[in-house]
């Protein structure tokens, strides 16, 4: 690792550790929310950015993680961290169950299957009153570690950070591994990858399961932060907001996932005055980003840089009689 790189990581670590000291209660809550969203955005970077598949039902996996952890902790008194892990595993198992049939065929069947799946999860959680509280929802205990209960979001921030950062590094690392390279090969050319012996269905199912696992963990962390779960939180709108966040941040990069997480936390604060038009703005942003900045905010610096360089190149070439600058 080069020196500037180490310095960069060290700086990021210091900033992340110091951040909560600057804010108030509400800002701690926003910080935690941003981290929880970042984890979902990371799961979508793996799924959409690396594997080239799409999910319109991640709220379903988020709900499974949240309710699984909440139910385990309240009904059996299991420790908080066990609940979080359990949330991730439940989401991953259901992820595999949805992906296995849907990924046997080429095309966008996974997107359709996840859309249906998320609607079913929400409906089932609503109807299953004895387990989830149905219409009333259910209360979730605050996170606790080794007998110490974290009653405010200041301490909880560090727990979430300790869980999200390894997943961030995993997502950064993934494209350099055998598994990640195969996923990207499948996205770029399914035929070429298959002819080199990459099993499409198996690798994409693994990617989807991993993605559902991350989202399940995020759901569990959310449940213990928010304290009360209501099934209407996990609607289609939520799934679509997740997708918007991942696209706007930048679907190809883990840094984009962080930007996306910040965006989804901050945007409602600014868009609140637009009320019912808030989601319309999300949709318009989604369409505009796909048209003009398909790799999201994370690609903006590079985009601006190449733009400046191109303009410079054009200036020097326009001195020539047959410059292409007026095309």
């Amino acid at each position, binding site marked *: 690792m080069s020196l500037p790189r180490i310095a960069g990581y060290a700086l990021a670590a210091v900033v992340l550790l110091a951040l909560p000291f600057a804010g108030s209660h509400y800002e701690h809550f926003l910080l935690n929310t941003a981290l929880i969203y970042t984890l979902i955005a990371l799961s979508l970077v793996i799924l959409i950015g690396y594997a080239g598949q*799409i999910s319109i039902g991640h709220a379903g996996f988020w709900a499974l993680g949240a309710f699984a952890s909440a139910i385990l902790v309240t009904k059996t008194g299991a420790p908080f961290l066990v609940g979080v892990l359990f949330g991730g595993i439940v989401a991953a198992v259901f992820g595999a169950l949805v992906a296995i049939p849907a990924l046997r065929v080429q*095309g966008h069947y996974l*997107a359709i299957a996840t859309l*249906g799946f998320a*609607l*079913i999860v929400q409906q089932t959680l609503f109807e299953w009153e004895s387990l989830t509280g149905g219409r009333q929802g259910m209360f979730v205990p605050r996170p606790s570690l080794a007998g110490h209960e974290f009653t405010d979001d200041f301490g909880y921030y560090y727990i979430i950070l300790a869980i999200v950062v390894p997943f961030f590094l995993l997502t950064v690392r993934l494209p350099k591994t055998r598994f990640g390279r195969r996923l990207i090969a499948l996205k770029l050319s399914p035929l070429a990858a298959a002819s080199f012996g990459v099993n499409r269905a198996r690798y994409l199912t693994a990617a989807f399961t991993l993605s559902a696992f991350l989202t399940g963990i995020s759901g569990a962390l959310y449940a213990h932060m928010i304290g009360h779960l209501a099934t209407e939180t996990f609607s289609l709108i939520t799934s679509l907001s997740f997708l918007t966040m991942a696209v706007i941040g930048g679907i190809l990069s883990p840094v984009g996932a962080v930007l996306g997480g910040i965006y989804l936390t901050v945007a409602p604060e600014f868009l609140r005055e637009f009320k019912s038009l808030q989601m319309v703005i999300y949709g318009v*942003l989604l*369409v505009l980003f796909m048209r003009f900045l398909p790799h999201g905010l994370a690609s903006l610096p590079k985009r601006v840089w190449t733009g400046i360089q191109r303009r410079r190149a054009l200036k020097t070439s326009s001195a020539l009689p047959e410059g292409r600058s007026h095309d």
Partner: protein
Amino acid sequence: MIVQLIISGLAIGSVYALLALAMVLIHKATDVVNFAQGEMAMFTTFLCFALLHGLGLPVLLVFLLSLPIGFLLGAVIERVIIQPIATDPPVNLLIVTIGLFIIFNNLAGAIWGYDPHTFPSLFSKEPMDLLGARVASNSVGMIVVAVLVMGSLYLFFEKTREGTAMRAASMNRRAARLMGISVPRVWMMSWGLAGAIGGVAGVLTAPMTFLDFEMMVAVLLKAFAGAILGGFNSLPGAVLGGLVIGLLETMFGALVSTAFKDTFAFCIIILVLMIRPTGLFGRSGIKKV
């Protein structure tokens, strides 16, 4: 009892069939799965609703107007939003149709409110006699309208120059272009036609379920199930798939459980993908390298 169930199953099935038809039409022409199809249909229905109450136009006229309104909506979306990114990766196009879903869904709520509205039916409220059973006139009317739309679509594709050009372009884009067919025009036509068919599905659904901004979300899922059952690349397959889903769902609702009717469509999707992923009429794609 059984006749009533079959008629109401076919009636709701014809709505699924129309929406499935619209999606397969676009998919055949442009390889895009349009997730906004249901919301476009809902929005078209709301525009008709505005004409009905704003200008006081008669119900029959509003009903007929759903065709050009839907067509315009589809064609404009294709020209303005889809065409500029037509050569982008398929995932990008899919995300854009999801963006359109969000836009139409929430715009309708913002403009016309979140409460359901009643939408008048074209057909009489009196039940009618059919095969010795009393069935709802509305159900019979829905089936008749759907058959008319499908019949004219068939004639359009088989008998007109424009329709033949569209079929040619979906079979082999390159050869069609060499024959002087404008592929961008075909794409716009496909989106327009799909919008019009969706519009009819919308005005047929609204009298039955009340008109609101979420009216078409469940219908879209069932139309997907129908299209997958039919093979996603076959127009007759989409129609048959939609009808089968409507019939099975009505039977399931009457005999087993109404609360989990929506779950049922999802199970069909998974079942088809597991047993016969190419659907009843689909051919498995063979790609040349």
